[in-house]
């Protein structure tokens, strides 16, 4: 059966060149991750779910699941088309610690990460910072300046979080498109420099 618009693998080399790059948006619960993804995405953030068992790990066998408490973890993601064959995906990471295993998959092959921080609850971003440092994944710390949030200077945030000198710290407004663009260009520039 044939149909129009069918993109077959290219004969030369036999493989497709379409590529999707990942950027993770991490940070504590309610810090604005989904807002940031929605602000910059060219599509309404897509939403999908992962089924988990009551232990917070992937389910291998569903027999007897009716006796367990199954939960789902939502995954919101947005997309930016860079070229016809190149997309940038932004994944908001699940906020709860019990979903760390999902981060491993999200982080695999990622271009980098944005750690969103709220100065009123700065400690909430520590686990994400530790995680990306251990993984040696390039990241930036973006301080989401909510209305009424105290405006810290980046140097103080850097010291409070215990960052090295090269990891960028920037102030942002997750609702503002040009501010989120600044965050992403800072991340990509940083990733280029340290790779």
């Amino acid at each position, binding site marked *: 059966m044939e149909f129009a618009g069918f993109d077959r693998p290219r004969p030369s080399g036999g493989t497709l060149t379409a590529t999707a790059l990942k950027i993770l948006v991490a940070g504590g619960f309610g810090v604005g991750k989904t807002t940031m993804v929605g602000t910059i995405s060219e599509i309404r953030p897509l939403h999908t779910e992962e089924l988990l068992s009551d232990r917070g790990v992937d389910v291998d066998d569903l027999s007897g699941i009716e006796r367990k408490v199954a939960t789902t973890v939502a995954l919101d993601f947005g997309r930016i088309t860079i070229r016809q064959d190149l997309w940038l995906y932004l994944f908001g990471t699940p906020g709860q610690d019990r979903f760390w295993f999902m981060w491993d998959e999200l982080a695999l092959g990622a271009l980098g990460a944005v750690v969103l921080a709220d100065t009123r609850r700065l400690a909430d971003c520590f686990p994400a910072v530790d995680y990306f440092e251990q993984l040696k994944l390039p990241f930036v710390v973006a301080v989401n300046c909510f209305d009424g949030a105290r405006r810290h200077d980046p140097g103080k945030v850097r010291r409070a979080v215990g960052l090295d000198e090269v990891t960028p710290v920037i102030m942002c407004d997750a609702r503002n498109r040009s501010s989120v663009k600044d965050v992403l260009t800072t991340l990509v520039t940083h*990733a280029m420099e340290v790779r």
Partner: protein
Amino acid sequence: MIEDDPGPLIRLYGLTGGRARPQGEAFDLVAIVVTVHLPQEPSVLNPEHHHILHICRKPTPVADVAAGLGLPLNVTRVLLGDLRREGYVSITPPKPANQSIDERTYRDVLHGIRRL
């Protein structure tokens, strides 16, 4: 977001015959799926399989397939695994960042973000 009611999910797994894992090699959220072959006898596949084959006429990342179907990732992956086993789709894993992201790609990404 967490929901305690597993009912709809259990029904969803009816689509996969109770399987929670796809057959064969695991694939990433941004692995690229493309339809390479269409079944001669449409009846062997369920409507979700056909929906995937339709979506993936153009190369489509796994995450977009799941969102397009409105199904959980696990379920989507099982269905994709079926289609791969039968030779209807190819699934190309992403390369490691240090191989897939060259200088030009970084510059294109920067340019793409700036022009938004």
